[in-house]
């Protein structure tokens, strides 16, 4: 049994996520300049770069490498990522940032996009998923390197509303639904890493999601 003081300490060693800018266009979202502590951001990025077991996924909508952290519970160097106390703090701070309570059942995955890969306009309007939080991790990406997360007010390229820079350790959060149109522009140079938190609803089944649980 871990004491509450120790749990708070663990969470503070992993998560920064204190400053949040809430915005409303094209739909409610927030952006945070520093999600992880600097030390953990470096640990996690190094792990992502070190040849983790990525799975290539290609559809007409997108092409990217993916992994789900549920299959890496044995990796002790990054296990703080899914520590229940860390996830509890994430749930609480995310709830404040979203302005609504989110679930403590959280799916955590990562994406790696290399040159030529992209994500076309989509909503991720899945019945079991309520909110998405995307954390960018990199060692500095030029503004013209491609791979920008983009929010749109509708389903066509003419509906572009916000294009995010790729500041490492910054995070973007938004609710998922029929209007949560977003996309990833084509990567031109380098490698784009993101960690994706998906907050689940009761409709998310254990069979479909290998999720973690907050304390």
């Amino acid at each position, binding site marked *: 049994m871990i004491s509450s003081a120790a749990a708070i300490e663990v969470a503070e060693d992993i998560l920064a996520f204190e*400053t949040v*800018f809430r915005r409303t*266009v*094209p739909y409610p979202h927030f*952006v945070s*300049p520093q999600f992880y502590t600097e030390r953990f951001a470096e640990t996690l990025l190094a792990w992502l770069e070190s040849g983790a077991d990525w799975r290539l*996924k290609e*559809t*007409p*909508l*997108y092409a*990217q490498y*993916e992994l789900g952290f549920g299959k890496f519970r044995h990796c002790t160097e990054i296990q703080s990522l899914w520590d229940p106390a860390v996830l509890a703090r994430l749930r609480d701070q995310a709830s404040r940032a979203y302005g609504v309570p989110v679930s403590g059942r959280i*799916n955590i*995955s990562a*994406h790696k996009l290399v040159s030529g890969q*992209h*994500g*076309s*306009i*989509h909503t*991720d309007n*899945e019945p*079991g*998923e309520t909110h*998405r939080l*995307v954390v960018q991790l990199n060692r500095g990406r030029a*503004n*013209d390197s*491609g791979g*920008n*997360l*983009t929010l*749109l*007010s509708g389903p*066509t*390229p*003419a*509906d*572009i*509303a*916000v*294009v*995010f*820079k790729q*500041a490492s350790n*910054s995070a973007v959060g938004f609710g998922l639904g029929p209007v949560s149109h*977003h*996309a*990833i*522009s*084509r990567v031109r140079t380098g490698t784009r890493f*993101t960690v*994706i938190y*998906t907050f689940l609803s009761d409709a998310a089944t254990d069979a*479909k*999601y290998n999720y973690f649980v907050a304390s």
Partner: protein
Amino acid sequence: MGGTVTSSSMPPELDALIETDSKILDQVRKDLSQEYILFMSRVMKERLAPQAGGSTPAFDRMRKASGPTTS
């Protein structure tokens, strides 16, 4: 561009997080447009040549195939 990306409406802290350079914004729009055209042309081809055993529109099938956590 939808016209909603403006630096004047943003606090300075967001300058490092949100793109306002028109060259980059144009490039993103161009990239998304190319992907959109490619995707829609595939949808149209599927509609013109319906596959056996499936009545689901191609667009829906492709979206479903994208699965969770595609951001």
